[in-house]
């Protein structure tokens, strides 16, 4: 399924060469295992026993590890997140032609990698961050398939957005540390760094995805 946006398409990208090679390797492994066990007396000799161990223990673990690694990497992609209908408007919000829209400005100016845009901002930059993000992903699946998912404009984060995710990139950056607005009040930056004042609080960078009002904004056509 592909979602068309002005001048750009988010879709699950065609399979990459490593994925194709991995699928071929898995298929080859399956055939090899099938041929081996179909031979009568295959494990009678010492060599047969070693081969059986390699084929029935080592090879499946190797395939599972490589497959899981590939799936985990793919689950970080923007296309993966936007492949759910509920996320369609959030993907569209990345193309709003207004630098005041936080998510759009980050996406369009490559402040986050466009291919991993969702994951870059919505993962925890803390210990076990990726693991926690995947658990939240499971929660998304539960909500999507087993309950009535809310309308896109009613979707809220499970927990308030932590400034840590912003500071992972912005802390120490000159534009952030020496920004006029950030330094107008000497208490502001320490409060932001301590997560006492949210970066996306009212009056600051409050417009993030704003999916409820996407019908009132202009869209960027994307890089050509």
């Amino acid at each position: 399924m592909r979602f068309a946006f002005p001048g750009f398409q988010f879709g699950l990208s065609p399979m990459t060469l490593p994925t194709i090679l991995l699928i071929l390797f898995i298929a080859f492994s399956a055939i090899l295992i099938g041929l081996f066990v179909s031979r009568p007396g295959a494990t009678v000799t010492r060599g047969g026993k070693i081969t059986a161990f390699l084929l029935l223990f080592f090879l499946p673990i190797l395939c599972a590890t490589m497959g899981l690694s590939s799936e985990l990497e793919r689950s970080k992609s923007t296309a993966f997140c936007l492949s759910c209908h509920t996320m369609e408007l959030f993907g569209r919000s990345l193309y709003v032609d207004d630098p005041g829209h936080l998510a759009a400005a980050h996406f369009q100016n490559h402040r986050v990698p466009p291919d991993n845009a969702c994951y870059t901002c919505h993962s925890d930059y803390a210990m076990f961050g990726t693991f926690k993000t995947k658990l939240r992903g499971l929660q998304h699946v539960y909500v999507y398939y087993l309950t009535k998912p809310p309308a896109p404009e009613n979707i809220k984060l499970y927990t308030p957005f932590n400034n840590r995710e912003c500071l992972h990139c912005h802390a120490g950056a000159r534009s952030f540390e020496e920004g006029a607005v950030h330094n107008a009040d000497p208490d502001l930056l320490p409060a932001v760094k301590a997560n006492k004042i949210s970066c996306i609080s009212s009056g600051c960078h409050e417009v993030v995805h704003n999916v409820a009002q996407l019908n009132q904004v202009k869209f960027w056509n994307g890089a050509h």
Partner: protein
Amino acid sequence: MPNANTIEKRLQIAAALIILGLLVEAVCLVWARPLAFLIFVGIGMLLMFAGIVFYLISLVAPGAGRSQ
């Protein structure tokens, strides 16, 4: 006491589980959807794990070494 045929039968069951798991994994890698990720982990890896455990059990099952 299991004979050679029993051991082979066990290996074939283990191999069938592993092959099924591998096929599920391959299909999930082609399908590339969030649900495929869950099927990959929940069914594919479970089948492979079951197959490997079945193979290991067949190695230590009573009479396995002697009959081979």
